[in-house]
């Protein structure tokens, strides 16, 4: 870590931060060398974001107190302690010497000002440029972050840009005054993998050009391996380990680091396997790592019989613009001509980037969205032809688990009430006592103590809530569970546990899963078959092994190459990525071309391209 040839830009020495009585950071020390990237990794609640906010001196504005320690920044006139500054002095540092990029590009730009005005603002403030000079400099910055047509871009408003473009504007603002230190707080978490890869490339290039140091805060070990020179691992407000990135990945010393790394799914980890398999997990028991679970081949799919769910030529359109008398002029073909089977006990994954239609397929199967055309049959019966009671029965057989465990439980009802809801709704158990017993069973089934039933959702962490949602999904004894990005809001160690839980449920109860995800590594780990979606069309469909090892469609290859590899020694061989997804909005009557498929191997379909 201590690279003597490069002087320190910032060092945190024995920092302790509290909110009220609870201490969120305890005696944290690390330093950032000039031109180096330090990744601060940890799970939610580990204190990594508070660390960055403390360096920016924004934490005390939200009520934090600095109990001990120093944060020393090297300035022109020698070093000084950031914690000694008044807020007025700190404001002069912020944006000029230390700049920050936030996680959510959709909300961190002001919607009523143009991009140009927002970049020029900081230049006029810190560098005293005139408006014209600031705008000229802003155009240069935009081309630096590879936004095309910079002059036109200056005049546009944030809502006219995609998430990836907005994050690039945020980076342009952050580097406008050529800061010594850039703090990036989960800057790519909200973005698609291909866009994430572009943003990481841009950050790397900017760093080389400006010689700035970066503190990169993330929970994604793949991103760490891609971008970091040094790593600081945080756990429960303390630093548990630090060191050069290669050493951390090759020989993690602290048990927590080891369990963290063992939980990270690696792309290519199941190469040569026909079936997904369950792997044991390293979990911390009383601070000591322990291997839990067995290795088991997940050969649960019963593909010889009839499919449980089959979707034929299904299209879903969303109307965007209508004339005043109600005729649609513009629409988005969210899904076009999707054809897909799900067999009992099988996990089939829908992968693609945002806007690819993967969630729409899931929601249509769940009858939350009406298909525009096509046929969906469940257990041999056509959904469109079902009467009300059959549809109601279907809502027991198919269960949906949502992405955000914080939003999918009613905050005003107890956990037990929510888990019992399907039982009450379908009248599965007619008395209160047996319902309670069943709820306890379900909660225990997903690894929660039964006495949590009386508590409210806000008392649980994200992972616990997702387990509660799974318990609720199991209450109706479903045959198909649709899991819509259920892992993306969870920490990696929790992710791995939930994956294993899904596999156990599938083994024991023969449940089929329709697994919607953007995370290729997770998909590879869990799926029997994979369907890759691009702009509402399935471009490649096949067994996991076919899609991942004999990738045939260029879009699938592009997706795979964008996935960060959690191995810092691996060579980066990536097709240079650029560009955005084209807009999906079409005029009424303008249908997208129907994809024609070639079966290049048995069960492996690829759209002609």
């Amino acid at each position, binding site marked *: 870590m201590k690279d003597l040839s490069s002087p320190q830009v910032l060092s945190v020495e024995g920092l302790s931060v509290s909110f009220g009585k609870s201490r969120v950071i305890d005696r944290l020390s690390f330093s950032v060398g000039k031109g180096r990237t330090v990744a601060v990794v940890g799970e939610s609640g580990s204190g990594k974001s508070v660390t960055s906010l403390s360096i920016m001196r924004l934490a005390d504005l939200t009520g934090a107190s600095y109990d001990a320690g120093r944060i020393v920044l090297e300035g022109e006139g020698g070093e000084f302690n950031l914690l000694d500054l008044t807020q007025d002095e700190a404001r002069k540092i912020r944006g000029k010497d230390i700049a920050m990029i936030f996680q959510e590009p959709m909300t961190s730009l002001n919607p009523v000002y143009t991009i140009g005005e927002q970049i020029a603002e900081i230049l006029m403030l810190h560098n005293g440029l005139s408006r014209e000079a600031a705008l000229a400099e802003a155009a240069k910055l935009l081309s630096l972050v590879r936004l095309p047509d910079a002059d036109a871009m200056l005049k546009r408003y944030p809502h006219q840009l995609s998430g990836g473009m907005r994050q690039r504007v945020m980076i342009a603002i952050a580097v406008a005054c050529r800061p010594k230190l850039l703090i990036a707080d989960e800057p790519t978490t909200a973005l698609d993998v291909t866009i994430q890869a572009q943003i990481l490339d841009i950050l790397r290039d900017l760093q080389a050009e400006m010689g700035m140091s970066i503190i990169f805060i993330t929970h994604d070990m793949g991103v760490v391996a891609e971008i970091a020179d040094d790593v600081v691992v945080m756990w429960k407000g303390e630093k548990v380990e630090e060191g050069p990135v290669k050493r951390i990945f090759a020989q993690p010393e602290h048990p927590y680091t080891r369990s963290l790394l063992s939980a990270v799914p690696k792309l290519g980890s199941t190469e040569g396997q026909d079936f997904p398999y369950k792997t044991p997990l390293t979990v911390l028991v009383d601070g000591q790592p322990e291997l839990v679970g067995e290795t088991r081949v997940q050969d649960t799919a019963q593909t010889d019989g009839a499919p449980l769910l089959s979707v034929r030529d299904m299209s879903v359109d969303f109307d965007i613009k209508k004339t005043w008398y109600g005729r649609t002029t513009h629409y988005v073909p969210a899904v076009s001509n999707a054809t897909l089977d799900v067999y009992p006990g099988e996990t089939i994954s829908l992968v693609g980037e945002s806007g690819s239609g993967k969630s729409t397929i899931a929601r249509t199967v769940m009858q939350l969205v009406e298909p525009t055309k096509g046929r969906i049959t469940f257990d041999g019966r056509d959904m469109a032809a079902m009467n009300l009671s059959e549809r109601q029965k279907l809502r027991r057989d198919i269960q949906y688990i949502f*992405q955000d465990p914080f939003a999918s439980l*009613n905050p005003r009802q107890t956990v037990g009430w929510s888990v019992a809801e399907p039982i009450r709704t379908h009248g599965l158990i007619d008395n209160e006592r047996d319902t309670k017993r069943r709820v306890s069973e379900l909660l225990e089934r997903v690894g929660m103590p039964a006495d949590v039933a009386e508590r409210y959702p*806000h008392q649980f962490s994200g992972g616990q809530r997702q387990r509660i949602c799974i318990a609720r999904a199991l209450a109706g004894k479903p045959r198909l569970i649709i899991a819509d990005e259920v892992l993306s809001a969870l920490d990696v160690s929790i992710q791995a546990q939930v994956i294993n839980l899904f596999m156990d449920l599938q083994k024991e109860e023969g449940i089929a899963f329709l697994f919607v995800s953007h995370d290729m590594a997770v998909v590879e780990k869990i799926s029997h078959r994979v369907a890759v979606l691009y702009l509402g069309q399935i471009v490649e469909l096949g067994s996991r092994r076919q899609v991942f090892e004999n990738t045939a469609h260029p879009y699938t290859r592009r997706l795979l190459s964008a996935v960060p590899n959690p191995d810092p020694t691996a060579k980066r061989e990536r097709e240079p990525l650029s560009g955005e997804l084209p807009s999906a909005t079409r005029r009424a009557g303008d249908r997208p071309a129907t994809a024609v498929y070639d079966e290049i191997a048995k069960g492996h379909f690829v759209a002609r391209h």
Partner: protein
Amino acid sequence: MTAFFQSRYWSLEFILGAGLTTFIVIGVLLSRWLFPDVGAIDLMARLVPPFERPDHLLGTDPLGRDVMARIFVGGWISLKVGFLSVLGSVVVGVLMGLIAGYYRGVWDIIVMRFADVQLALPFILLAITIIAIVGGSLTNTIILLIVSQWVQYARLVRAQVLALRDREFVLAARAIGVKNRNIIMSHLLPNLMGPVVVLMTLNVANNILLESSLTFLGLGVDPTIPSWGGMLADGRTYLQNAWWVSVFPGVAILLTVLGLNLLGDWLRDTLDPTGRTQK
């Protein structure tokens, strides 16, 4: 109910709010027995200032009637109008808002255009029209207030429902197959009552005053029956030299509203299991 007696619910808000409200309600309910000779006119004791004579602790009005007695007895009408009109508006308004927001489509158009028309009518015009048709009485005053105020609740609730109905827990309930009625009752209603409770406490005071305006215009209850609003209006002309005639009924309204507001805040915080709104 056991949770009720845990310490977190015994906040200062609750003690003050419940104390004030209970005091006023009990005082008003017992006023018939406490002040049997409330209407007694004593022209020898006109406009006695407060705190001078023990039998007229809060002074007397221009006809020599005891202000304190009239406040307690007059509270009966005021509280009845205030509470019943607000309860009625909430029932109608919340129901309409839920229907409009949840079912959208035709229902939304019907309810909301009706509400727009309602909002476009000036209150006094509406009052004159309705009272001219059905005649002035306590019941009709309350109905009039309900007719003119349910819109506020309907619009508030509809906006809340529009935000809530696309939240994932509502979607999740739909995916399970929960009936619309149960989604409304157990998922929407508990999550939108907070702002409704706040609006209710504000409207109680508003309606007590509106009743007095109506009475003042001859559109409300019989002006010889004392009510807080009526006393406020009566004392207006004497404000220069006999402030107590109108100030004390005003204080009564103030204390009632304060008590209800505190109770409303407490209720909102207590009903919210996340405790987010708590300080």
